[in-house]
């Protein structure tokens, strides 16, 4: 009974259990030779999903209909422009970072301006914003692949005590996000807005202000992720954000955040991000093609939503 209640109270346990299972299966298949490398790769790639996933989770917490589809385009533009501005100079790393955060703020502001002023549903507003942002990235990039500054590139690809640096960055960001959600007034507010906008308004919560800050936060995190990913992979590419559209939403859902809003879950995002990467590498080791991998990814997401939905209704 107690264990049962623990599971209900901590839905993220599921994603970690699944992660552990997939990890063991993969390692067994390769005869244990790859366990360290696999873990490091999983942490590295999961880190990027975690960073965008946290932003998306804040937005989804705002309630039904709230979603940010401009995440991939924001990542691409941020990576492209930051690398272009830094121009391989180590002294410009901080300037590039500031540019990337500023860019995210502007995109987030633009997203909410579209939602609020033109009364467009978030799914359409952020999608249109994503076209603008992606086109800007194409125009700015012109097919050139600029290398990141040496220092930044080595930072993103190396590890500290065996843990990849990008994973440490993601861990710090997660800790800040957890604090924000659990301990601050802002965290209470987004949860309240996600449960009932009229009730939140009548409890004295500045609903529009809260939503605006949340959309900006999401875009800034996507921007930051683009900056790191471009530096990690040795240059920005126009399609670098593509897979993070599905990924950012999938990790939120698999991680146990309520799709209907009001309830969020940061540990779950880690479990889900690791799980998603490990599933792909497991299918790779078994030699399945890209098409089959995508089908399976979709099926997994559907299965998780089914299971999570069932759990909710029995409460």
């Amino acid at each position, binding site marked *: 009974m107690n264990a049962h209640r623990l599971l209900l109270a901590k839905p993220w346990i599921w994603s970690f259990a699944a992660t552990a299972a997939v990890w063991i299966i993969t390692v067994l298949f390769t005869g244990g030779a790859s366990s360290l490398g696999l873990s490091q790769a999983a942490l590295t790639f999961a880190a990027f999903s975690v960073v965008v996933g946290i932003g998306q989770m804040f937005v989804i917490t705002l309630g039904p209909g709230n979603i940010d589809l401009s995440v991939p385009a924001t990542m691409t533009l941020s990576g492209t422009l930051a690398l272009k501005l830094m121009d391989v100079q180590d002294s410009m790393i901080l300037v590039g970072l500031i540019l990337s955060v500023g860019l995210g703020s502007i995109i987030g502001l633009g997203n909410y301006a579209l939602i609020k002023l033109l009364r467009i549903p978030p799914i359409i507003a952020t999608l249109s914003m994503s076209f603008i942002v992606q086109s800007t990235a194409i125009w700015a990039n012109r097919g050139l692949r600029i290398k990141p500054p040496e220092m930044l590139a080595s930072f993103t690809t190396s590890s500290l005590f065996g843990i990849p640096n990008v994973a440490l960055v993601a861990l710090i960001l997660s800790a800040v996000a957890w*604090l924000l959600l659990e*301990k*601050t*007034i802002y965290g*209470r507010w987004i*949860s*309240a807005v996600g*449960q*009932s906008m*009229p*009730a*939140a*308004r*009548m*409890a*004295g*919560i*500045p*609903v*529009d*202000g809260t939503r*605006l800050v949340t959309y900006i936060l999401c875009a800034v995190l996507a921007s930051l992720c683009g900056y790191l990913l471009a530096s990690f992979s040795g240059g920005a590419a126009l399609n670098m954000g593509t897979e993070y559209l599905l990924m950012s939403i999938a990790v939120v859902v698999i991680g146990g955040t*309520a799709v209907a809003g*009001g*309830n969020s879950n940061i540990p779950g995002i880690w479990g889900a991000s690791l799980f998603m990467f490990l599933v792909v590498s497991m299918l790779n080791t078994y030699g399945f093609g890209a098409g089959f991998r995508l089908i399976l990814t979709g099926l997994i997401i559907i299965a998780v939503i089914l299971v999570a939905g069932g759990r909710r209704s029995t409460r």
Partner: protein
Amino acid sequence: MTADPMKNEVVAARGIKVAFGAVKALDGVDLVIQAGECVGLVGHNGAGKSTIVNVINGGLSPQEGVVSYGGKTGAHGISAARANGVRCVFQELSLCPNLTVNENVRIMHPDLKGWDWRSRALALVKRQLQDIFPGHLIDCDSTVDDLSIAERQMVEIAISFAGLGAPPKLVILDEPTSSLDAGLAAQMMAYIRRFVAGGGAVLLISHILGEILSTADRIVVMKDGRVVADRQASEMNSRSLVEAMGNVVREQEYLRSAAARSGSPVLSMPPRRGRGLAFEAHRGEIVGLAGLGGHGQTEALLDLYLSRNSNWWPGRGGELAFVAGDRGLNGTFPLWSILKNLSIASLQDLSSRMLIDNARESRLGLGWKNRIEIRTPDLENRILSLSGGNQQKVLFARALATTARTVLMDDPMRGVDIGTKQEVYQILRSEAASGRTFIWYSTEMDEIRLCDRVYVFREGAIVAELTGDEITEKNVLAASFSAGEAA
């Protein structure tokens, strides 16, 4: 009355009892409507008018009693009622706004089928509109969205009276003139007389007593789920009607705070919709908003609140707090614990250095749990684990726990048991004595009588201000019902 009353009966509801939980909405009501008569139905809010209408039109099954159509019992339900020629025009307009007028006709008249039903529907509604409202200017090919509120009401009335083959036997009109001007209302009433003279029956619900008195043959007065008067209209006048609706017993006296109105008002609002009186509230006052439900009291409260609370920036402690009446709509946060629901409006006072102090939050919660006796073993339980009355207490505690000087209350006692009410009244009194101001919309006369001063609302505007001993059920009713001609 004819020799065989059963033969002329259109609808008869006998001994109807309906209860929603502990609330008795109807407590043994008899309502018989004969062919060829117009019955006026009046009563205060919550008297059970809508409930009996819903029983008659088949939308609601009574727990006790029988409903018979044309003398035959057995069949009940919306389709049985429709099959027996019962039609209903509701106060809330029930047309589909995205369809055209003739398509809406088709929805109400399923017999309009086959080739070219559109033009037949068009002809039907055009003829009927011309019949009821001669000289109207409604384009029956436009979508309902493009019509004004009055035009929609006219179309809905016309659709309900229109008969394909057989005309309806009974038309129930719930506040049919609420959005019509005086000229259209007069046409409507004249049509009702013609319809009744032709052998049809009408059940007319209106808060405009003049209309009822001039149009109805017989007037039924309801109060607290019972029929308290059922007389010929010729025997009644507006004074005797108001008295029949009101409380006959001598009202109890309440101790009102003698707080002299001092200084400038803490809250004020210009006359609403450019009509009626301006609103003012002073420190330590309990100001009541009275009148029939849905006459702009909730809107006035929301306007007061929203105009003083930014949607973009956090308020500075907030000067206003709000207690919701419709808990599900703008009160509770269903995923949260009782404690979080209670503390949400006072988080700024509970946090230091940007972080919420959980220990202070629990202390606040425990303090209020004891003070207004929220019946739960643990404040960490979910809010929905509480009964409705206890949820309402949490919402009260949420507002009272803030530092707000003024508390707005939107009919917060709906569905709350009498014991809880008494506890809350006590708290309100003591809080008001210590300088808090309460703006209290209530549909219950007992609560209105607790107020120091009362504004009576009608059609969105404040029409009367009552102070001290003037606050009686009779005065409030007289002001809520426009005395004579159609408004």
